[in-house]
C-alpha cells in the first residue's frame, strides 16, 4: 500500500514523517515523534485518554488519521507548560489532587481546556456533562471537577 509524506505543526514545531493510510494520529505522535504523553486507553473512541487539540478543537487522536492531520496545528499535553511553569489547568489538577494513577490525566487536561474555551462560565453540571467522553478508573471524578472549576476562574482572570 502507499505511504504518505505528511507535515504538521505539533506544539509549535514543524514536524514531518512517512505514514500509511491507516496510521492514526496517536500512533504518529507516540511512535514517530516519541510524544508518549498522549495515551491510548481503549482505542475504541470511548475513554478520551488520547485527546489532543487539532486546529484548536479537542479530538480523539485514536480516531483520526495522521494523513487527515497533514497540514494541521496540533497541541498535545507536552505543549502546555511554559518551561517549568505549568498551564493553569495542569496546576489545578496538581493542587486539587485530581489524579491518582495519572493514566487518564493528559486526556482530561486537554478536554478540560477545550471545555473552558467553549464556555468559560461552566457550572458543576456543565463540567460533568462536558467530561462524558473522558473515563477515569481511579478518582471518582470529584476532584477533577473541582480542579476544572478552579482553573476556569484562573484562566479567566
Amino acid at each position, binding site marked *: *500500500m*502507499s505511504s*504518505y509524506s505528511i507535515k504538521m505543526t505539533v506544539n509549535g514545531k514543524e514536524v514531518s514523517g512517512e505514514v*500509511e*493510510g*491507516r496510521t492514526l494520529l496517536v500512533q504518529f505522535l507516540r511512535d514517530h515523534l516519541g510524544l508518549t504523553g498522549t495515551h491510548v486507553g481503549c*482505542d*475504541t*473512541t*470511548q475513554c*478520551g485518554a488520547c*485527546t489532543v487539540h487539532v486546529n484548536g*478543537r*479537542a*479530538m*480523539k487522536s485514536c*480516531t*483520526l*488519521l495522521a*494523513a*487527515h492531520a*497533514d497540514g494541521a496545528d496540533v497541541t498535545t499535553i507536552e505543549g502546555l507548560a511554559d518551561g517549568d511553569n505549568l498551564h493553569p489547568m495542569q496546576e489545578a489538577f496538581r493542587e486539587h489532587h485530581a489524579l491518582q494513577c495519572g493514566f487518564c490525566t493528559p486526556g482530561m487536561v486537554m*478536554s478540560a481546556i*477545550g*471545555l473552558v474555551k*467553549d464556555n468559560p462560565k461552566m457550572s458543576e453540571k456543565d463540567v460533568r456533562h*462536558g467530561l*462524558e*467522553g*473522558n473515563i477515569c478508573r481511579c478518582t471518582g471524578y470529584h476532584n477533577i471537577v473541582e480542579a476544572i472549576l478552579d482553573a476556569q476562574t484562573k484562566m479567566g482572570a
Partner: protein
Amino acid sequence: MYDFTYQRASSLDDAKSKFSGADDARYMAGGMTLLPVLKQRLDQPSDLVDLGFLDDLKGISEDGGNLVIKAMTVHHAVNTSDLVKSKIPALAHLAGTIGDPMVRNRGTIGGSLANNDPAASYPSAVLALNATIHTDGRTIAADDFFTGMFDTALNEGELITQVSFPIPEKAGYCHFPNPASRYPIVGVFVAKTADGPRVAVTGAGACVFQVPEMESALASNWSPDAVANVKCSADGLNEDIHASPEYRAHLITVMAKRAIEAAG
C-alpha cells in the same frame, strides 16, 4: 485496521470522481463511525475519500421557511448555532446530546444520516420535522430516506450535500441515553408541523419510525396528557443487555411525554 489508500477530496466533483475511480471506496466525513468500523475489521475498503476539507459542504443558513444544514456540519456547530437555537431549539439540543464534546467536534449530520444507525439521534429529528435530504443528484423526502437498519435510499457513491428542515411551530426532543455509549436507548422527537403533529422514535426499533396513534392524539390535543395513555407494542423492538423490548416500548411513551413538555 486493514490498510487503504487515503485520498483527500478538493471539491464535490473531485470526491465523486475519486470515489468512482477506486475499486471499492468509502467517503469519510468525521470518521467517528467509519474508523471504529474499520478498526474492528468489519469492512475493508480499497480507498477512503476524505470529505473533511470541503468547506462548501459546511454551514447553516435560513432559506425561506427552512433551516438548511450542510452535510459536513459538525454536531458542535449545530448545537451552538444561534440560528438553530432560535429557529429549531430542539434540534440544537439534540445535537448537544450526541456522544461527547470530542465526538461532536468531528461527527457530521451527513455521516450520521448516511450511516442510519438504529440508535442514531438525528434520524428522529429528520423524520419528525419532515425534512428533505439533498444529494449531489436529487432530493429525498425523510419519509423515503430511512429504509432499514443501517440502510438508506442512497445509491452507491451518492453524496448527501445538505438537509433542509421546514421550521415547525414547536418541537421537542427527549432521550434516555445508554450510560456507557451515550447513544439513545430510546429517543423521541415531536414536532407540530404545517402538516400536523409528527412523532418519530429512534433507538427502539431496527430503524427510526413514526407513532401514528400519538400523532392523531396530538392533533386534537397538543399536550403531554394526550400521549400518556398511548401504549406502544413491544413487537419487533430491539432487545439487548441494556433494555428489553417491553422496557423500550414503555420508554417511548415516557420520552414522548417529556419531549412534548420540552416543546411547550
